[in-house]
């Protein structure tokens, strides 16, 4: 525990990790209830293309990935509308294209592979101070944006038709949610990597749903699980020399497992 007070890199990792994971958990809860959890996975693949582009052009990879993922999220919505595709098909189209671009650029540039690996598997302990502030700022914006539209998002997720009839615009909130997902995925990518970012969106939220009897409880539990996963995961990674991303995700899964068992015990 003392290490968190001693080492700057651990403090940065903890600070950014907690903010990003809590944002992921709150957004993830809404995505899960909308049965849209895989959008995070798809946008993470797109972000991989963005990271490769950033490294290829010698620009800040996190910022480039952010731009590419936000653009792709908008394109997913447009493709759904114009091509009459289901959400998962539109996501599949863009995630494949994003991944293909990433592979192409990595091959063309020859020397990108090592840098790309850190984004694939996450490298929170190597987070730069500017990335910490970017992560904290954007994560706070994501949470604020969700909380401002809390009741509308909840209504739309619970009963879309009644919400529309009540004058709530689903288009505006759908766009907002998709863009927020793109931002959150890029932030989560730095914490646990592209391959595991879906876990940050899904597991705390799934854990939060196990025992909650109302939406507020589910939100708080999800955020609590995210907080514990990052704190405990980083501590375990430092103490036992483990990869931080894997430790965070496996701890989140363990908490989910415990809450799942408690739910079963409560029911029977």
């Amino acid at each position, binding site marked *: 525990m003392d290490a968190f007070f001693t080492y700057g890199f651990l403090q940065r990792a903890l600070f950014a990790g907690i903010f990003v994971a809590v944002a992921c958990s709150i957004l993830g809860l809404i995505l899960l209830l909308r049965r849209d959890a895989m959008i995070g996975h798809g946008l993470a693949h797109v972000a991989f293309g963005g990271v490769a582009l950033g490294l290829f052009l010698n620009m800040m990879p996190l910022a480039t990935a952010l731009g590419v993922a936000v653009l792709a999220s908008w394109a997913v919505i447009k493709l759904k509308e114009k091509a009459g595709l289901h959400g998962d098909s539109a996501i599949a189209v863009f995630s494949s294209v994003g991944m293909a671009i990433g592979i192409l650029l990595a091959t063309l540039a020859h020397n990108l592979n090592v840098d790309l690996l850190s984004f694939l598997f996450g490298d929170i302990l190597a987070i730069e101070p500017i990335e910490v502030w970017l992560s904290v700022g954007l994560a706070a914006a994501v949470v604020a944006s969700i909380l401002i539209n809390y009741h509308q998002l909840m209504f739309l997720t619970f009963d879309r038709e009644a919400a529309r009839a009540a004058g709530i615009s689903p288009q505006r909130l759908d766009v907002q949610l998709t863009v927020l997902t793109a931002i959150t995925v890029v932030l989560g990518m730095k914490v646990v990597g592209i391959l595991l970012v879906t876990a940050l969106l899904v597991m705390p939220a799934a854990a939060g749903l196990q025992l909650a*009897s109302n939406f507020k409880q589910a939100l708080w539990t999800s955020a609590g699980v995210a907080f514990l996963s990052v704190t405990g995961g980083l501590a375990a990674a430092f103490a036992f020399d483990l990869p931080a991303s894997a430790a965070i995700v496996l701890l989140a899964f363990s908490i989910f497992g415990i809450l799942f068992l408690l739910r079963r015990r409560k029911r029977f």
Partner: protein
Amino acid sequence: MSEEKEARSSNGTKKALELVRVDGVSFKYDAGPNVLEEISLTIYEGDFLALLGPNGSGKTTLVKVILGLLKASAGNVFIKGHPVEEFEDWPKIGYVPQKATHVDPFFPASVREVVAMALFSRSGASLKKRKEKEKAIVTALKSVGMEDFMGRPVSRLSGGQQQRVFIARAIVHSPQLLILDEPTAGVDAVTQERFYEMLQQLNKQRAITILLVTHDIGVVTQHVNKVACVNQRLTYHGTHEDFCQSEAFKAMLAAGHLVSHRH
């Protein structure tokens, strides 16, 4: 000034405001055939109108066109005198959709949250008005006899109780018009009877105009004061007393399109 029109109410004794006017509305999905053809009807303040018709006759489509959820391919809908495209006062229209009770069993919403989501999503959750809104939630739940279930997860209620909660959500803004699309599907006969009595109370005591999509002839004979029959076209629109003598009624009864839950 509103352009609301005034007209004679169903009993002809007092003047009633025109809440909804459907004027020559037709509707079709993409290049398909017409689902609705030249429907014209008016709903006046105080009406308890049953919208009847066989399965696939276009009842739900008509409701969605009235609510602006679907755009008519021809004709117009006016709500309180305003074209539906320009109407903004949606809290004054409560709506309980068909299959509202198909609640996701994993959605962690309490009864209070379900009612609150409608109230706060239109007007925010400012602390100043919070007390008033909490009162409105309790009043709405009291109106449907669900005030003791506030903290209960809605997914663990029976179908009839869930339906009451959705009505509370629809009336929490004190709407002028409440639209219910087959609200008692899958609910037992005794619960249905209580449910319709509750609707009648809302209609009479809280002066809420009701448009009810139903197949249940028992409702038509005992609770509503007006009936509209739709089978792609409007086949009847008038009082429930006249409806029972009409050709539309006989035709629907002969075809087995009406059911009765009274024994």
